[in-house]
């Protein structure tokens, strides 16, 4: 793919994103939909249900602990996959 057509395609993608930006909320607006539904409950109840003052740690480890467990298995799988791709037995001998 030559460079001129790649430039045209990426400018078209940028213009599409700029067009959809007109409906987004303003920056640091307290009433945007991202901060309204479940996140005030996490902030208000985190010290009374678990005595942890850090809201980020309590959401990561307690309220959404299932996602953290599978993310740990993702990094473990990446380590195993790099080992499997790069280590080859020499002289064609298979390890026993």
């Amino acid at each position: 793919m030559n460079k001129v057509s790649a430039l045209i395609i990426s400018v078209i993608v940028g213009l599409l994103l700029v067009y959809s930006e007109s409906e987004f909320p303003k920056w640091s607006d307290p009433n945007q939909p991202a901060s309204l539904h479940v996140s005030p409950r996490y902030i208000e109840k985190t010290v009374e249900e678990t005595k942890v003052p850090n809201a980020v740690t309590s959401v990561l480890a307690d309220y959404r602990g299932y996602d953290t467990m599978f993310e740990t298995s993702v990094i473990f799988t990446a380590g195993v996959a790099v080992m499997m791709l790069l280590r080859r037995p020499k002289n064609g001998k298979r390890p026993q």
Partner: protein
Amino acid sequence: MVRDLNDIIVRTGARILIPFMQIYSLYVYAHGHISPGGGFQGGCIMAASFILLAVAYNLHESKRRLKEKRNAIFCSLGVFIFAATGLVPVLFAGNFLDYGKWSKVLFTDPIMARYYGMAFIELGVQITVMAAMVSIFLDLVTAGKHEEVFEEEKINGDNGRQV
């Protein structure tokens, strides 16, 4: 394959920094409840200390302090700690990953049991992240040929390396 870096400034700087980096990573993990931090951040800093040792000295030095087999055991030990912390509440008629039921084993109230459960799983996350990052680095740097590097060193000698 990985030659010795005979630079005295890098060696002296690494000698001063590495113990402080390891203690700092444990500090960042332990204060995850009160200040920004936690398991991922502490694990990355600890892996960075082993990588700095491999860059400033020889690759042999880093593998002498954290052996290959022990690294692989650490990699799966972290995931095991996480899953075990989640499965023990199932034995006491609770949900999976419901740390309130640990209060029957630890003899505290359910709110403090959630506090301690979070500390356990962050420990598992730290161990896995550190082992996986060191393992990926060692594999990419030597292109998979770990054992041949060390057999070459034994045959050719140490090249007069200063300690």
